């Protein structure tokens, strides 16, 4: 039997009261939060309405398909559907990593991405720095328009231009090679030429457009920093190295983190358009392999496993890059 200072359960009344008050306080706080949240939505609904299309886009095109990712762990059959297909664990991943073509595709993806990072990433920065030094306004505008243009051209046309330019019979490159007294080179059928051509094409297509973000960052640099440097005796070269580049470094790092997050996403369309079986050795990347296995051979589950592997690698890379950047430069995406 409980005494007068304890509850029926034997807990001291004082403790029970404290717990009850705490529960009530938390309930009130929660209610308060909800009230504040509802008030906030009522007040700012226009902003949330503007956000809605983006949220819907994310849900429909990025989150809903995640449901289908489970087929990477299933023996998927289109007749049984996603839910009806039996679980088979890591089998697809074991198949992937015992497949030489997939391993080659991973290696090619990483190699091409590395070259893209090495040559393609600095290209728009250098271009922006060069544009920044051009004083003649008309010349600057014209040059900018010319280098932005390839971005707006379809990859199919870009690939057509590249194929024509490197054609062994009528291509401008081989014409030049012939002028130098050499035999024409079958660039697009030789594996050793694929990566330079692919990376070069990417730079030609995207460096100009990519420079816009760096030009915007340069435009944001306080002009008195340059004036102060001029009075201190710095020349343009010194100003570029000591003011412009350090000032746009946070932008460079953010863009680098984003770029690293896309390391496994080598421009699929351009590879498909430029490669051929004779260049698979250096050109076949994970996405093209997934395309061939998944869509052309109907192995959706295996393709999903490869896609999931891609996503996990990209996630790990972007997290690592973000953490390193935050630690060493105080700049990070989040």
């Amino acid at each position, binding site marked *: 039997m409980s005494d007068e200072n304890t509850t029926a359960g034997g807990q001291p009344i004082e403790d029970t009261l404290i717990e009850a008050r705490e529960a009530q306080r938390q309930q009130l706080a929660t209610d308060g939060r909800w009230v504040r949240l509802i008030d906030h939505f009522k007040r700012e609904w226009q902003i949330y309405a503007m956000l809605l299309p983006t949220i819907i886009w994310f849900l429909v095109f990025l989150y809903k398909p995640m449901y289908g990712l489970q087929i990477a762990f299933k023996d998927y059959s289109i007749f049984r559907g996603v839910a009806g297909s039996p679980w088979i664990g890591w089998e697809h991943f074991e198949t992937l990593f015992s497949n030489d073509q997939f391993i080659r595709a991973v290696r090619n993806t990483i190699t091409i991405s590395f070259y893209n990072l090495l040559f393609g990433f600095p290209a728009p920065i250098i271009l922006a720095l060069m544009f920044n030094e051009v004083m003649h306004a008309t010349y600057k505008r014209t040059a900018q328009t010319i280098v932005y243009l390839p971005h707006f051209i379809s990859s199919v046309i870009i690939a057509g231009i590249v194929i024509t330019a490197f054609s062994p019979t009528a291509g401008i490159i081989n014409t030049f090679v012939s002028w130098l007294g050499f035999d024409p080179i079958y660039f697009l059928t030789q594996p050793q030429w694929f990566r330079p051509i692919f990376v070069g094409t990417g730079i030609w297509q995207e460096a100009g457009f990519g420079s816009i973000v760096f030009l915007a960052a340069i435009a944001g640099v*306080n002009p*008195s*920093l340059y*004036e*102060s*440097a*001029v*009075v*201190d*005796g*710095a020349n343009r070269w*010194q100003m570029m190295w*000591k*003011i412009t580049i*350090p*000032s746009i*470094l946070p932008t460079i790092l953010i863009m680098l983190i984003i770029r690293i997050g896309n390391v496994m996403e080598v421009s699929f369309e351009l590879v498909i358009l430029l490669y051929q079986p004779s260049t698979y050795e250096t050109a076949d990347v994970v996405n093209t392999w997934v395309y061939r296995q998944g869509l052309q051979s109907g192995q959706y589950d295996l393709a999903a496993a490869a896609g999931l592997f891609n996503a996990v690698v990209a996630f790990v890379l972007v997290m690592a890059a973000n953490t390193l950047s935050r630690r060493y430069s105080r700049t990070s995406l989040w």
Partner: protein
Amino acid sequence: MSGVNLSGIVKAYGALQVVHGIDLTVAEKEFVVLVGPSGCGKSTTLRMIAGLEEITAGDLTIYGRRMNRVAPKDRDVAMVFQNYALYPHLNVADNMAFGLRIRKMPKDEIKTTIDDVAEILGLTPYLDRRPADLSGGQRQRVAMGRAIVRHPKVFLFDEPLSNLDAKLRTQMRAEIKRLHNRLGVTSVYVTHDQVEAMTLADRIVVMNDGRIEQVGTPMELFNNPANTFVAGFLGSPPMNQMKGRLTETGAQVGDAEIKINGSVAGHAGRDVVVGIRPEHVTLTDEGNSSALPINLDLVEPLGSEALLHARHGDDQLVFKADTNGDISHLSGVTSVHVPSHLVKLFDAETGRALNLGA
């Protein structure tokens, strides 16, 4: 030898002329303040001295050397900018060392110089910090430190205190003055704040619309403004200006006559502007023949003093009065007594000061 000499300096952007032939000599070790409203050409003039703006016409000499075509780095000037212009990615020491490194000064000399200047400016504990980790006043000191380490012949200040709050501005003003007294470097300082101009300057240059209105010591300009613009610009609040007409003994302003020292008798009937400094009046609640009747609109207490906003006819006037901690007696003010020797007269047409033999 003059420190800085501007002779017929003109600045034009295409057909638009913004500085119209300025003549000014800044003596060696002198602290000259260019003051004027926004757009008067004071910053443009300073930037021409620095070499950041090309000189359209005229001659600029610094310590006797013609500088029109000389690059900024070779003019031996250092400039402190309005927004400090500190490199955000460099710490205080590196910011101060920037100009010295560009000039390839030996490392040990750079260190000694920076340590010395940091000591002067009280920046020694902050040498490893970046600008973002400093307060506004500390950033301003770093900006000055960066100028001082160069040991230039001329300091140029472009509204260096305008980004600071009022309290810090007062503090930094005193620091700049002390620093100038200690270093004795020829300085040209631009501001739109007339209090800064009055407190800092050996001489003030009042500019308006690309022209110099008056040059003189702060008290010369305060006591004897050359025209209505200078009278209205210097002083806080500025000089009250009322349209009037000279009589045999003074100036008729509305229905009141203000007595004036000097020989005005021969000028009776001449239209003038009568200038009265807000602090030069004695407030009274008894009208008499020598007092200016006013209608009191508003009393603004400022602590030890108060501003009285009043009207005389169509003229809006402001007067300043000591409160001794009590403003209750000010509500009954009906007129102000203006000492005749402190009344200023300006030509009504040209705005120029009249000296009628006082």
